[in-house]
């Protein structure tokens, strides 16, 4: 096993390198906090070179090339250049320890709210911007100031193959978790499809379930209230209901036979061709599923199977937010691009998402939701001074609400690969949450 050793040593070293590489920016901490940065930019002319970082490597030569032409016609003195990054999250967080991370970039999700002022140019007050734009109030804002505008927005729910569900004899979309479970059972009994595909091995699709919190209780403060409770996993709570749904389906064998060997790319084709019944994904996935389906009309989107006062709810959340690098030399041009992207580009609707503008059009992909009378719910911002409390507790507890491992454990316990009952699982999560909460707030 000698060479494995060498490789492992290399891996350890590179881990050390990665850990170390993140740190070199700590010296320029004072650069971000100066307040005059924004006032200076208003007098600047809209001109110069603009580097725009994007995660959409697939759209670079098509959609984004068009955007460049359109924008440069509008502002002839600006020269837009794109940098598409495959591992966006990982690469950009590392690059942010230098000054060179583009002029306009998508704020990495791992940034905590109180670090925003160090890295990004303020865009304006949340009060003003929220008159026009969605998602500014609760996302990427700190201390009443907004730092990013969403490129698009997502509704949340479950993508399903209408044909599979119809073949199984299900007429209406389920309105309770119990009914959902019965429907899955019918799919298992009457078709060859996997009723609910977890995409366990790829991991990140399991985190999509987390986006449904708030829908169970129709409570826009569902996430904020996590900061005030020692027991997020109690009967009736968002996490309890969502995780029970997964647990019960897995325990009844209604998920894939071997979750550890799933494959995301394959799962898209399988859903499209009726080998998979249902997957929990944000509305962004609908377009991709339709592309790989035999008949795009087979792909349906249903809300999370819970009704409050006779109505389904879906939480809409912003995707990545465009923001301006605080070290940018052409802040005026950067801001012009950012506003143009949100207002004029039409990116959100073209990609089947919810427009970042409150008056923006509804995309075709969410027609199913209109039919089902689903109410859109936007989560409330965290109270001032507590913007990062929930994520701090989450990190301290090492539960990782947005990490695959948390729900992988639930699936494992349910299918008998871990020696834990549902109640033990939830008790353990509650204990860890309570301990972490005490340490964060203590």
């Amino acid at each position, binding site marked *: *096993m*000698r*060479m*494995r*050793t*060498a*490789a*492992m*040593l290399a*891996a*350890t*070293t590179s*881990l*050390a*390198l*990665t*850990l*170390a*590489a*993140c*740190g070199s*920016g*700590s010296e*320029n*901490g004072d650069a*971000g906090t100066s307040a005059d940065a924004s006032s200076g930019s208003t007098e600047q002319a809209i001109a110069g070179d603009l580097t725009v970082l994007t995660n959409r490597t697939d759209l670079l030569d098509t959609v984004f090339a068009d955007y460049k032409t359109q924008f440069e016609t509008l502002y002839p003195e600006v020269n837009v250049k794109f940098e598409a990054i495959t591992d966006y999250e*990982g690469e950009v*967080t590392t690059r*942010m*320890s230098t000054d060179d991370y583009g002029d306009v970039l998508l704020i990495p999700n*791992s*940034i*905590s709210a*109180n*670090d925003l002022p*160090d890295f990004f140019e303020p865009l304006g007050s949340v009060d003003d911007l929220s008159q026009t734009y969605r998602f500014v109030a609760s996302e990427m804002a700190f201390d009443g100031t907004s730092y990013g505008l969403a490129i698009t927005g997502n509704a949340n729910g479950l993508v399903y193959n209408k044909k599979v569900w119809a073949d199984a004899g299900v007429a209406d979309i389920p309105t309770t978790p119990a009914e959902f479970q019965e429907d899955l059972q019918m799919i298992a009994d009457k078709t060859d499809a996997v009723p609910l595909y977890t995409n*366990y*091995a790829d*991991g990140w699709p399991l985190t999509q379930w987390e986006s449904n919190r708030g829908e169970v209780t129709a409570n826009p403060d569902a996430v904020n209230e996590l900061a005030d409770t020692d027991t997020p996993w109690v009967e009736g709570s968002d996490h309890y209901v969502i995780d029970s749904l997964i647990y019960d389906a897995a325990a009844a064998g209604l998920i894939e*036979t*071997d*979750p*550890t*060997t799933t*494959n995301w790319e394959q799962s898209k084709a399988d859903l499209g061709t009726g080998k998979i019944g249902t997957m929990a994904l944000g509305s962004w996935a609908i377009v991709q599923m339709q592309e790989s389906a035999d008949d795009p009309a087979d792909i349906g989107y249903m809300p999370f199977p819970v009704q409050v006062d006779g109505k389904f709810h879906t939480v809409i959340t912003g995707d990545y937010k465009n923001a301006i690098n605080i070290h940018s030399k052409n802040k005026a041009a950067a801001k012009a691009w950012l506003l143009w992207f949100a207002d004029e580009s039409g990116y959100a609707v073209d990609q089947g998402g919810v427009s970042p503008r409150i008056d923006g059009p509804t995309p075709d992909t969410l027609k199913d939701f209109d039919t089902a009378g689903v109410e859109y719910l936007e989560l409330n911002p965290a109270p001032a001074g507590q913007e990062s409390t929930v994520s701090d507790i989450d*990190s301290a507890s*090492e539960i*990782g609400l947005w*990490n*695959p*491992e948390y729900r*992988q454990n639930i699936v*494992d316990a349910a*299918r008998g*690969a*871990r020696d834990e009952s549902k109640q033990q699982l939830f008790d353990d999560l509650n204990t860890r949450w309570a301990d972490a909460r005490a340490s964060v707030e203590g």
Partner: protein
Amino acid sequence: MSIFKTSVRPDAGRAPRQATPFKERLLRGATPWLFLAIPLILLATFTLLPVANMVWYSFNEWNGISKDKEWLGLDNYLEFFTRPELFRVFFVSLYYFVASFLQMGLALYFATVLSFSTRFKNLFKGILFFPYLINGVAIGFTFLYFFRPGGTLDATLAALGLEQLQHLWLGDPDVINVSLAGTSVWRYMGLNFVLFLGAIQSVNPSLYEASSLDGAGKWQQFRYIILPSIRPIVGLSMILAISGSLAVFEIPYIMTGGANGSKTFVIQTIDMAFNFNKVGLASAMAVILLVIVLLITALQRKLLPDEKVNLT
């Protein structure tokens, strides 16, 4: 130094001057350092500095992005040693540790067999070494297909009429680490094999002839000639196997991401740093792993000093 002296001074044969001018002496002293400068700078920039940085982080509480860190002293280390669940991952290493002995055994067997005259010798050498040349990510994905239900392994078992042996090779938490360790054996055996083969081929062939004249069989030749000759290499492989088992990363990370009880120490460290944003604690864990590996190496040096083997 002597090389430079002769090459710099083609007039070395003449009577030496009374005193070399200061400038020339300086240049002569600096020459080796100038040659070394580039590798040394690279070493410092990409190895020593980051490691020093990592050690520094391990004394701080830091989320990896924020501009401010909080000095904790030894608290990260204390936290690690007071949380037994962080040690549980070392049990996973045991699978790889046991597998590494199987790997060395197989490598030794093949190396011995192929060092005698065998039909298609070079072909077999190629086949055995080949897996080591394949990219680890490719191996991870190949074996994912190999182990999936109805995949290559199950299909092969079915073809042999051994359906009852079919398993959820990665889905069953009791089997997953065996499957992964098996993948690791497949991948790295070739390297052990080449090392052993090289060592065995340096044994003087007349020893085999002499021993067979004395009536020694192949097993006795292996036991009393080959094994003692390659003892240092075997000892080295063993120590590398131990430290390697502690730091398994690539195969489980690519294949399962540490899910279903296959998490190893390095995967846990990465999770800690990049999922839970505890870069300080993760750095402390990396430092601890480094120290353990250094200790094992030191121990090996003590227990198995480099001894000269001389059979002739």
